[in-house]
């Protein structure tokens, strides 16, 4: 249960050193990505000009304000409220993100499934759980929006954030086959019949 302070991009070795139940705080660059972003990247053949190798992506579509381009706002956007969406809908994009773009860390909420866990094992990636619904707090870890690509998909553009002290995030799925979600699911499934019996449910 070690804590890691990491600056992105990270190497495969750094990513593989992370174990379930460890915590991570990130600094550097973070890319925001979401349903439409990945549908366009992986189903409709669009490419991003960003280099995602070794980077962390977060499942998000932020609230932003359009502002004049300046040193402080190089992309012409000020962050208003940046939070995290449910990862499960984007399950099938994990492998191509790692394989085609070299992403090393996915930040999200609610967890991913078995095929993502396998991709993390095969390609050296991790899933970092953030507390969903805590966007006001998360926004305080965002220093600015450095750049944006695929912005016709706004708010589901590909966002490039500058971050500081982004965390602590919980390593919930690692590259060694560990998944907190699988553990919880097993325990919950085992409790199901007991709970139903307690409710007097006869045959379920």
């Amino acid at each position, binding site marked *: 249960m070690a804590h890691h302070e990491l600056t992105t991009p990270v190497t495969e070795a750094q990513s593989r050193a992370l174990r379930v139940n460890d915590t991570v705080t990130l600094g550097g660059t973070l890319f925001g990505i979401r349903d*439409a972003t990945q549908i366009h990247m992986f189903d409709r053949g669009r490419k991003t000009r960003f280099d995602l190798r070794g980077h962390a992506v977060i499942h*998000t*579509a*932020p*609230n*932003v*304000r*359009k502002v004049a381009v300046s040193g402080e706002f190089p992309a012409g956007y000020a962050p*208003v*409220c*940046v*939070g*995290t*969406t*449910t990862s*499960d*809908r984007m399950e099938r994009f994990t492998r191509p993100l790692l394989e085609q773009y070299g992403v090393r860390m996915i930040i999200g*909420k*609610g*967890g991913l499934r078995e095929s993502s866990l396998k991709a993390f094992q095969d390609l050296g990636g991790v899933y970092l*759980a953030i*507390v*969903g*619904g*805590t*966007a*006001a*707090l998360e*926004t*305080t870890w965002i220093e600015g929006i450095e750049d944006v690509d695929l912005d016709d998909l*706004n*708010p589901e553009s590909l966002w490039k954030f500058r971050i500081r002290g982004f965390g602590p995030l*919980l390593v*919930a799925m690692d590259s060694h086959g560990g998944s*907190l*979600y699988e*553990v*919880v*699911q097993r*325990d*919950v*499934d085992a*409790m*199901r019949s*007991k*709970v*139903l019996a*307690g*409710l*007097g*449910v*006869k*045959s*379920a």
Partner: protein
Amino acid sequence: MKVDLSKVEDAAAELYVRALKILPPDIKQGFQRLSAGETTATGKKVLATMMTNITVAEQTDNLLCQDTGVPIYNVVIGRGVEVDGQGLKQALRRGCERATREYPLRSSVVHPLTRKNEHSSCGPEVPVIHMDFSDQPEMLKIEMIPKGSGSENNSFLKMAIPAEGVDAIKAFVVDCVIAAGGKTCPPTIVGVGVGGTSDLCVALAKRAATRPLGSACSDPDGAKLEQELSLAVNQLGVGPQGLGGDSTAFAVHIELAATHITMNPVAVNMQCHSARRASAVFTPQGMEYGF
């Protein structure tokens, strides 16, 4: 009482932003209660982060969650209220659109087929507007609910049959909570609709999910069942954010309606821990914001 529609429009805009920023007191108390009873270290930590977020949102005057949701306006019109119904609906829509553009809020609403976002939080049939009437004299209440998608995506309907009895309802609720896992941003309010027709059953589930904590189903058998189920789902161990723990739900709420002799419908709609709502009440004395 004659209703000034320009004030309704202003309130519709203000309510959207207020709902996104300030969590109702009953939900804050719900956090205190769950936190006191949580026995796992992870669960405690996750709940503490959620409570910190509520404070940060208030201190930084920011939105609690980035998900601006699907905007829902529930309107209750009392007796002796003079209002142009269609004008009222248009005022709510204009207010919703204004809040989105002026604040600015993320427009989370797209056309269901083209996926085009008009950046107004509006589209066909959205904002969702429900109208109802009450016995109260000279009163118009507007409740605004930004319904987050993480929880809304965990909505379920089962047309069970009479032979399956109440057991079917109980098992369905438990299985929905298991299926939702961490995807629905627990701790949740599990809204359960029982009876009615399929559409009414789902609408009841939504009403139940957005009812204040501490309120009870007006039907005594429904109230008893919601207590039983509240205890049961928190024994499952899903926990805050689905990372394990005792705090899976703030409560299970039930709303019910009579149904057909051949039917036994049950629906589940969930509200995430950012259980946001805000209201405005118009009376001859003026307008007051609340929850």
